[in-house]
C-alpha cells in the first residue's frame, strides 16, 4: 500500500513538472466556395493528417465569395485566405491593404457552361442566345468574354448569380446557357436534364491565367514566415495526395460534398487536371493586369516592383 501511494505521488509530481504538451501552430483561414475540388485541398490534406505532420492545426471558415474571403485576411481576423480572386487581391494590394499572394489556387478554371436546349451543342450554337456569368468582374465573366472574343460569338452575356440561381434561370428558360462549378449540376447532367456546351478551359486565355490565389496577411507573413513555408509545403503535399491512386481521398471528398464516389472521381478526373491547382506560379499576369484595369479593380497596371512585393510564393523544396 505504501509503495502504491509512493508511485501515485511520483506520477502526479512527474505530470506536474512535465508542463503542457507541445502544441501545433494554429492557422485560421477563410476559404471561398465550400465543396469545389480546388477549395477542398486543405480539408482533404487535413483529414489525411498532412498538415498535422507539419505541425499545423487548421481552423477553416468557408465563405461564399472572394470579397468575403479577403476581408478577414486584411483585417487580421484570419491568417490565410484561399480562393481569393487574383484581381481582388491586386485591388486590395494597390490600395495599400496588408495582403500578399503566397500561391496560385486555380490556374484556368473547372467551371463549365451547360444548357437544356438540345439545339445548342457547342459554343458556336450560342450565337444570338443568352449566356450566363455570375457577377460583374467575376472570373466567370472573364471566361464568357474570352469565349465571345476567341470564338467570335454574338451571344449575349447575362449576370445570373451563383450556380443554384443560374440553374433555376436556365430550367425556366430565362437564360439559354448557364454556368456551374462541379460537382454542382453533375447530377442533372447524369439525369439528362442538361448537357455541357463548353468548359472554361476551352478558352485559351483562361487556360493561361491564374484566376484565384492563396493570400496571407502581411504581418503574419513577416512574423511567422516558417509557418507560411510549412503551410505551403503541406498544401503541395495535399495536392500530390489528392492526385495519387489512394482511394481514400475520393471517399473523403465524396463524404465532404455529399455526392456518390463515382461522381467525386468524375469531378477530379474530368474537370480538374492537376495543373489547375498547381500553386507554384501565378501565370498570365499581363492579361490579368489588363483585365484588372478594364474592370476598374486597379487604376493602372502594377509595376514590376509592386508585383514582386505582392507575389511571394515560398519556393518548392
Amino acid at each position, binding site marked *: 500500500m505504501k509503495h502504491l501511494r509512493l508511485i501515485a505521488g511520483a506520477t502526479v509530481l512527474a505530470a506536474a513538472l512535465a508542463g503542457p504538451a507541445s502544441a501545433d501552430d494554429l492557422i485560421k483561414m477563410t476559404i471561398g466556395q465550400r465543396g469545389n475540388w480546388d477549395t477542398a485541398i486543405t480539408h482533404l490534406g487535413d483529414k489525411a493528417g498532412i498538415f498535422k505532420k507539419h505541425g499545423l492545426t487548421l481552423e477553416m471558415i468557408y465563405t461564399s465569395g472572394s470579397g468575403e474571403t479577403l476581408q478577414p485576411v486584411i483585417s487580421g481576423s484570419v491568417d490565410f485566405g484561399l480562393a481569393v480572386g487574383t*484581381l481582388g487581391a491586386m485591388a486590395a494590394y494597390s490600395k495599400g491593404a496588408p495582403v500578399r499572394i503566397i500561391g496560385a489556387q486555380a490556374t484556368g478554371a473547372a467551371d463549365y457552361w451547360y444548357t437544356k436546349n438540345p439545339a445548342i451543342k457547342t459554343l458556336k450554337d450560342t450565337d444570338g442566345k443568352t449566356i450566363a456569368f455570375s457577377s460583374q468582374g467575376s472570373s466567370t465573366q472573364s471566361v464568357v468574354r474570352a469565349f465571345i472574343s476567341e470564338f467570335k460569338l454574338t451571344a449575349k452575356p447575362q449576370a445570373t448569380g451563383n450556380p443554384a440561381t443560374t440553374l433555376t434561370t436556365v430550367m425556366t428558360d430565362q437564360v439559354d446557357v448557364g454556368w456551374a462549378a462541379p460537382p454542382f449540376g453533375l447530377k442533372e447532367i447524369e439525369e439528362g436534364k442538361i448537357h455541357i456546351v463548353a468548359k472554361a478551359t476551352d478558352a485559351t486565355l483562361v487556360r493561361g491565367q491564374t484566376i484565384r490565389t492563396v493570400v496571407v496577411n502581411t504581418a503574419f507573413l513577416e512574423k511567422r514566415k516558417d509557418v507560411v513555408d510549412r503551410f505551403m509545403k503541406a498544401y503541395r503535399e495535399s495536392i500530390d495526395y489528392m492526385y495519387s491512386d489512394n482511394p481514400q481521398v475520393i471517399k473523403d471528398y465524396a463524404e465532404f460534398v455529399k455526392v456518390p464516389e463515382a461522381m467525386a472521381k468524375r469531378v477530379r478526373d474530368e474537370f480538374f487536371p492537376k495543373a489547375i491547382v498547381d500553386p507554384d506560379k501565378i501565370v498570365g499576369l499581363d492579361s490579368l493586369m489588363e483585365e484588372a484595369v478594364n474592370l476598374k479593380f486597379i487604376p493602372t497596371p502594377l509595376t514590376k516592383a509592386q508585383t514582386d512585393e505582392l507575389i511571394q510564393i515560398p519556393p518548392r523544396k
Partner: protein
Amino acid sequence: MSAQAQKRASFADYAPAATGVGTVLAFFLIMELLVQTGMVNRFIVPPPSEIIGSFGRVIVEEHVFSRFLQTLIECLTAGVMLTVFGVAGGVVMNRYKLLQQACETWVAAMASAPIVLMYPLFLVIFGRSAWTIIMMGFLAALPPVILKTIEGISGTRKVLVNVGRSFNLTPSQQFWKILFPAALPNIFVGIRLGLIFALINIVGVEFLINYGGLGQLINDLAERYDLAGTYAAICFVILVSVLFFMVLEKIERWLRPVD
C-alpha cells in the same frame, strides 16, 4: 409678434434639423479621428473624408443616378402596393373577426420569416426582372402594415364610434369618417415599418441576384475592394430611405392637418 419672438420661433423651426445635421457631422468627425489615429482599421472602415471624396467617382463612373432611380422606383412600387394591399388587408381582417382570429398569428409569424431566402422561387415565378425584387420587398413589408392597420382600427375610441352611431352613419361613412382617420397614426407607423422592411429586402435581393440598382453596385464595388465607393453607394441607399420618409411625412400631414 416682436422681432425677438420671431427670431426665437425661426430658431425653434430649424433647431431639430440643425441638431440632426450636427450629430451626423460630429459622428463623421469622430470616425475620421478614430480611423486616422489607427484606432479603427482603415481597411475595414475607410475614413469619412475618403468616402466623401469617392462620391464624384461613384456618380460619374458607376452611373449611380440610374441605379438610384431603379432602386427608388422599385421601392416606390413596392411602397404603393404594400400601402394599398396592406391597409385593405388589415381592414378586411378587422371587419371579419373569424378571418382575423384565424390569420393574425400567421401574418405576425410571416413578419419574422426570412423571405429573402426564397429568392430562387421568386425568380421562377417572376423571372429575372425587377418584379422579382419588387414582389420580395412587397411581401416582406406587408405584415407590419396589416397588423398596424388592425391595431389602429380596433383601437378607435368607443366614444367616437358611438358618436357615429348616434348620427346614423352608414357602415361606409362610419369607416371613412371615424375609423379610418382614427387609425391613421397607426397605419402610418405600419407603412413606415413596412418601407424599412421593403428597402432592406429590395437592396438585399439586388445584391443577391445581381440585378441592377444600388444593391448590385454595392456588390460590385465590394468585390473590387473599393471600400470608399462601397460606403458611398450605401449612402445613396440611405438617401432613398430619407426621401421616402420625407414624402411619407408630407402625406401624413396632408391627411391629418389637425395634428
